């Protein structure tokens, strides 16, 4: 654990100020329990509790996932600690009218990356300094140039395989799925009141954890995140069966990038690739 004390201190005072001035009803940030391996989400509603906020290199969770929740919303205006990557999720939520910008106070934290070793998403992160926040605590950090070729490396390693090899790989991986839906539930963008898998009449997706159902589920999940997923990696982190879901999301993000030059969540004003079109979109493989 490596607590960033500068950020933490400014964060704490900022949160305390926001709360004491009544500008927010709650500050969602990270806290750390002794002996815990990660810093966990924490909801601060009193200024004096602000000192419990920390910011370190184990703040994995994407706090944006809490924004659609009624319970959290009922606390009033939400102050939320956002890393650059989290901000992308919030931008998507804004774009999809899930939250209103006016209901949020975005407390940006400059972030040099999470995890030791660094998470892959952090190694290709171009949002070390979140932009468009209401405030940023701590000093800006250096934004290293990223190796763009590494951005989709997990997907790329699978792309290199033959169709049969890929099927072998994925049928194995997807067979493990126990349909706990942790992937969905931790995803900040899976805010559906009713997930497609919960839709009956007709039943879109078999809920049984057999490969048929698992393929359908994972295809649907991946597809519903296509053009939306911001690559926060929470799904993969949450999966109790260690299915490499990130690679799937990467693959689709890569497609959106290559076909439409689209990177999700860079702005709340962007148009999702599947809600727009160009007359001259790629059309290879159509008979």
């Amino acid at each position: 654990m490596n607590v960033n004390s500068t950020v933490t201190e400014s964060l704490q005072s900022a949160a305390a100020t926001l709360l004491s001035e009544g500008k927010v009803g709650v500050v969602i940030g990270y806290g750390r329990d002794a002996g815990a391996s990660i810093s966990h989400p924490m909801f601060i509603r009193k200024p004096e509790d602000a000192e419990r906020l920390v910011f370190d290199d184990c703040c994995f969770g994407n706090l944006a996932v809490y924004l659609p929740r009624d319970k959290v919303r009922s606390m009033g205006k939400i102050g939320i600690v956002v890393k650059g990557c989290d901000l992308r999720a919030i931008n998507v939520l804004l774009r999809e009218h899930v939250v209103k910008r006016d209901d949020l106070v975005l407390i940006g934290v400059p972030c040099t990356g999470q995890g030791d070793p660094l998470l892959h998403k952090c190694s290709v992160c171009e949002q070390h300094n979140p932009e468009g926040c209401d405030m940023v605590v701590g000093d800006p950090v250096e934004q290293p140039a990223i190796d763009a070729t590494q951005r989709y490396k997990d997907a790329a390693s699978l792309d290199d395989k033959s169709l049969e090899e890929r099927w072998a790989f994925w049928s194995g991986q997807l067979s493990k799925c126990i349909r706990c839906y942790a992937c969905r539930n931790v995803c900040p963008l899976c805010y559906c009141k009713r997930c497609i898998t919960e839709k009956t009449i007709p039943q879109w997706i078999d809920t049984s954890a057999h490969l048929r159902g698992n393929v359908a589920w994972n295809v649907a999940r991946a597809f519903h995140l296509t053009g939306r997923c911001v690559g926060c990696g929470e799904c993969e982190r949450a999966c109790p069966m260690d299915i490499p879901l990130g690679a799937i999301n990467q693959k689709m993000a890569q497609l959106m990038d290559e076909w439409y030059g689209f990177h999700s969540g860079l702005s709340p004003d962007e148009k999702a690739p599947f809600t727009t079109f160009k007359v001259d979109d790629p059309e290879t493989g159509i008979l």
Partner: protein
Amino acid sequence: MIQKAKNETTDPSEWQPRIVAFLCNWCSYAGADLAGMSRLAYPAAIKIVRVPCSGRVDPMFVIKSFEQGADLVLVSGCHPGDCHYTSGNYHARRKLLAFRELMTFFGIDPRRFKISWVSAAEGAKWSNLVKEITDEVKALGPFETYSEILTGETGP
């Protein structure tokens, strides 16, 4: 278990693929209709599901079709620019092409999923298209990947 249909018992030489085709009402369906009216024959393996527009096709329909034992799925709409609903086929094009990539990434044979533009005047194109894809799927044989998992017996 979901029925694996008559395929298994049939002699491979007489094996008939099952093709699910989602045709937009205004172009491709009319094109198929024209083929019929023009007495242009094409293989009966294809089962047509009429949709108002190719944009109506949720990619999950494709998965659904495979789950039901389809050996090949076709989505066919109006040519770009000719959509009866202006832009449905443009949206379909984005979604379906991305979906095919996703399938491919999972190792699900993309040759099992075809997209085409057939206009209402292209009865002959329709007829030829069905012949071609039927021949192709015949060459590919039954969709083993999916028929294996149809049983639902695999799993942890």
